[in-house]
């Protein structure tokens, strides 16, 4: 008990005297805060990217592609094959028809508004069932397209990021010539980066005959996926692979989030070491300027442990202040910042918003405390080992 109250008293004394060493203390706070800003904001890119893709997947939906394909872009299915796929068991039915849609996917060059340079914007050829399956898709402006006509709708994020697909415009690219009649949202998912039109119109424009790239289905329940998948993979007429939609989209985030996390953690580690060095200098100064004070406390009977802990405590208080400020700055500066990038795995653009999650913020704060502890360790040991007699005599 006595030890605890001693430690607390010394720590409070140290913390209360921080204003006397305001210069070096601010350096430590800014140093650690800087690391946390960078750490949290870089990782929020990966977080946002992943959120956009995983929001597109539901556990009761499945995607069927050609065997061996990972993405719609590299897949290909004939009309006959898609008809067989729609016969599979496990697909939810409505009015005696399976809730399944054959879809096509191409990319067209549209200029990115931010740079004015061409970007691969995905255009999805859909069927009426596509809307039944993805019930999160909502028209937020304009109206639904009429099937069988050259009408298209644009995702909210695609319209914001790329020029030439505003509501009401005629959008031409090669043989494709459609009018944008509506804008849709879909819970911030990757679908919002796309332009949707009738798959028949897209097939015609790309001279694809009657071919598609994927079949999306709504399952009776997540549990019927196994039945559905087994029927497809054992069917000798087909060479396809079926995936739960949630897994399909999660897999598409691997390369990008791996890259961002790899770079983000490397930067955070290097910056962290530099900031720890800065913190060591600050705490070393704190010890140096308080040498006489610490020696006096020791002479009065305060034990070594409480002095050691108090220096560590002070360093961690400074670090926590930096961590909190850094996290707040990252949140205010970057949360919700909308941008678009290329997903290497699908060769097309994904619009997404940076996402500073509470989990990332707590990771940043924990990291700052670790930096504070490591930075305080050496100076704390130094303070504890001060010889009382000589220290008292010091200036």
């Amino acid at each position, binding site marked *: 008990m006595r030890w605890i109250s001693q430690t607390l008293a010394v720590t409070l004394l140290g913390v209360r005297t921080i204003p006397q060493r305001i*210069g*070096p203390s*601010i*350096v430590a706070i*800014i*140093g650690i805060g*800087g*690391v946390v*800003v*960078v750490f949290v904001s*870089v990782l929020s890119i990966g977080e946002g990217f992943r959120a956009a893709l995983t929001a597109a997947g539901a556990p009761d939906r499945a995607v069927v592609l*050609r*065997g*061996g*394909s*990972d993405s719609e*872009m*590299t897949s290909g299915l004939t009309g006959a094959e898609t008809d067989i796929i729609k016969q599979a068991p496990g697909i939810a039915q409505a009015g005696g028809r399976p809730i399944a849609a054959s879809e096509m996917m*191409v*990319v*067209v*060059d549209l200029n*990115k508004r*931010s*740079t004015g*340079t*061409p*970007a*691969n914007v995905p255009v999805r050829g859909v069927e009426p069932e596509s809307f039944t399956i993805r019930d999160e898709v909502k028209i937020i402006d304009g109206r639904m397209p009429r099937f069988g006509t050259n009408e298209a709708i644009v995702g909210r994020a695609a319209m914001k990021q790329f020029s030439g697909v505003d509501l009401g415009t005629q959008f031409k*690219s*090669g043989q*494709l010539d459609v009018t944008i009649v509506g804008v849709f949202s879909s819970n911030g998912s990757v679908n919002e980066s796309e332009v949707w039109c009738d798959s028949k119109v897209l097939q015609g424009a*790309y001279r694809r005959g009657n071919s598609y790239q994927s079949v999306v289905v709504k399952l009776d329940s997540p549990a019927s996926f196994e039945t559905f998948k087994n029927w497809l993979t054992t069917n000798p007429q087909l*060479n396809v692979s079926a995936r739960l939609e949630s897994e399909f989209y999660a897999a598409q985030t691997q*390369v990008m989030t791996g*890259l961002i996390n*790899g*770079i983000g953690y*490397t*930067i955070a580690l*290097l*910056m962290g*070491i*530099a*900031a720890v*060095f*800065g913190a*060591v*200098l*600050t705490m*070393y*100064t704190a010890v140096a300027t308080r040498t006489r004070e610490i020696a006096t406390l020791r002479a009065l009977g305060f034990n070594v442990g409480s002095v050691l802990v108090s220096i560590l405590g002070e360093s961690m208080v400074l670090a926590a202040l930096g961590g909190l400020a850094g996290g707040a700055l990252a949140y205010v500066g970057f949360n919700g910042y909308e*941008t*678009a*990038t*290329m997903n*290497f795995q699908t*060769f097309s*653009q994904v619009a997404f918003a940076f996402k500073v999650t509470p989990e990332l913020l707590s990771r940043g704060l924990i990291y700052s405390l670790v930096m504070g502890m490591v930075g305080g360790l050496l100076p704390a040991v130094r303070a504890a080992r001060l010889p009382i007699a000589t220290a008292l005599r010091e*200036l």
Partner: protein
Amino acid sequence: MKFIPLMWRNLLRRKFRTVFTLGCIFISFILYSFMMIVGTAFSMGMDFAGADRLWMMHKVSIIVPVPASYLNEVLATPGVATATYATWFGGSYQGKQNQFPVFATEVPAYLKLYPEFTVPPDQLKALEADRQGAIVGADTAKKFGWKVGDRIPLMGDIYPSKNNDPWTFIVDGIYDSEKTAVDKTQVLFRYDYFDENRRPETKGQVNWYVIKVADPSQSAAVATAIDTHFANSPAETKTTPEKAAIGNFVKQTGNIGAMITAILTVVFFVILLVVANTMAQSVRERTNELAVLKTLGFSDARILMLVVGESMFFALLGGGTALLIMSLTVSRGSLNMPMLPVFAFTAQAKLVGAVLMVLLGLVAGALPAYGAMRLRITDALRRN
């Protein structure tokens, strides 16, 4: 110069502080180098693109194919020195995680267009006699331990073979390069073998053409002539200088450059504070001494030089060591990330690093040095 020993003694006065300040600067410049290498990787060798090369692709998008039969008409365009086409094969080796650029192309012509790829002549001859042959980049060969003569099975993710087996190629040669920032991960194999074995519905189609112009100053005119020629054909084309084409592709990823600049700004702001704070403390501790020096007749300018010299020492030693170590270790190696094959610490990045070092030394030392210069001897001697 004769005051260097004095500056040196001052640095040794607080060894602990000197070491940690140096460490802080050292790590920051390691980080700077790392960011520059990442930036160069994301720019995909744009700065090293051939000035005399054009890329021609379908006007709608690179994923829409162009007929291989356009080659003769391209070659016949005035100003075109040589040209060939290529198709993105997109293969993977022993699982999806092992992907690298695989192109089906007229390999000898392609190598003539990219003289920075060097292949021993006998290996190229072997390829010409071997329909299944491939020329493999040194980085990829090293990564998977491939040697000349090896048979390599690649899954055709975009182009399944007729019976869904892997495609098999024979490593006839390995290309390397003396130049920096050259992609050494590509696998090039013969177009005739590819076209014969892919499914009939895609036959005769390629993704892009590489065109070499006789006179680089005429690039724009040649590009326009080609696009006009194909203007009303079934596949309209878009021809762009290689550098611009890579640049457009790079910008698809987003503004990586701005991100790197933002991060480095934070980093340098932090170390600037650390070094300036160290210098301020060091000056504060030595107020008496500085006053003594002044009494002895040191001019204000000389005092200024002493302090700035010290902070300069920190910046140059810490930063210089980091830049040197990074240049030595980075000359060989790779980021080992698919899509980012270019790995180099460019001369420009080193130069900017050196400039930053000097600026850091100057700025961090400036304020404490100014304070030291303005000290009034009588006050300073009395201050404790």
